[in-house]
């Protein structure tokens, strides 16, 4: 890839991260109490986060459709799209565990990383714990990949 393309690739990725984080802050997703209120439908319910998801899908769905009419992305040789369509126990168990943690803390990975610069003690505890959880899950996935049938 040419130098120009490398630089464009760098800035498009950086701005993608910046827009993502700004969107999380503007939408209220970076406020754990607001997230918990969205989930608290029998209490102090705040439906705002349905609008975050709605707004995101309204842009992403047509955007993806349009982009994927190209044969390759602009700065990479191929699209890396998830191809699986089977519903397995790992998917459902993982999502269920994720939801319990999301409800307990009001944080998911994007808002947690975005909130790091505010350095609130809660986020400083949550993020390292989340990274440990991710590594643990990767560890449990390793043996099945390494297993060679006898």
């Amino acid at each position, binding site marked *: 890839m040419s130098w120009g393309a490398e630089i464009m690739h760098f800035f*498009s*990725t*950086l701005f*993608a*991260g*910046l827009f993502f*984080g*700004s*969107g*999380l802050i503007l*939408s209220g997703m*970076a*406020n754990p*109490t*607001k997230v918990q*209120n969205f*989930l*608290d439908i029998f209490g*102090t319910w705040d439906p*705002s986060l349905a609008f975050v*998801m709605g*707004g*995101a*899908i309204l*842009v*992403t*769905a047509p955007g*993806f459709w349009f*982009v994927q009419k190209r044969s390759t992305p602009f700065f990479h040789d*191929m699209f*890396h*799209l*998830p191809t699986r369509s089977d*519903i397995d126990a790992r998917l459902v168990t*993982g*999502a269920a565990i994720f*939801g*319990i*943690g*999301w*409800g*307990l*803390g*009001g944080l*998911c*990975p994007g808002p947690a*990383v975005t909130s790091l*610069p*505010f350095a609130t003690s*809660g986020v400083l*505890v*949550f993020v390292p*714990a989340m*990274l440990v*959880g*991710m590594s*643990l*899950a*990767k560890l449990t996935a*390793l043996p099945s990949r390494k297993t060679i049938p006898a």
Partner: protein
Amino acid sequence: METEFTPFASLLGGGLIGLSAVILMASHGRVAGISGIVSRILPPAIDTKGLPQGLTFIAGLLLAAPLWFGFIGQAPVVTISSNNALLGLAGILVGFGAVLGNGCTSGHGVCGISRMSGRSMIATATFMTTGVVTVFILRHVVGG
């Protein structure tokens, strides 16, 4: 504690998140799943090829809050539990569950649903349900 219903700010913020997902797909051909981006650069089995993009995206995420502070002049309202043991447990569950289930709110909830992926719809319905049940127990059974 109640929070203000903010349909316009939330819709606009969601649009920005969508724009980010489209930029990432257009430039690098990847789904904007934060748990995937973060976990791929963690041990074991670090994705060294994807490392530069992963770190660049995360740098962008980390720049958002300081820039927000710089432009708006005040930090956004963030209220979080002061129970650090609970947040530690929440962090482990979120990290473990997201990697086990191949995605989080962004990868399944935004990108997956936008791609009409059945797996993502099931995952999103599942974590929304356990999230609602967890908050119900936390606030109305234990904390009630």
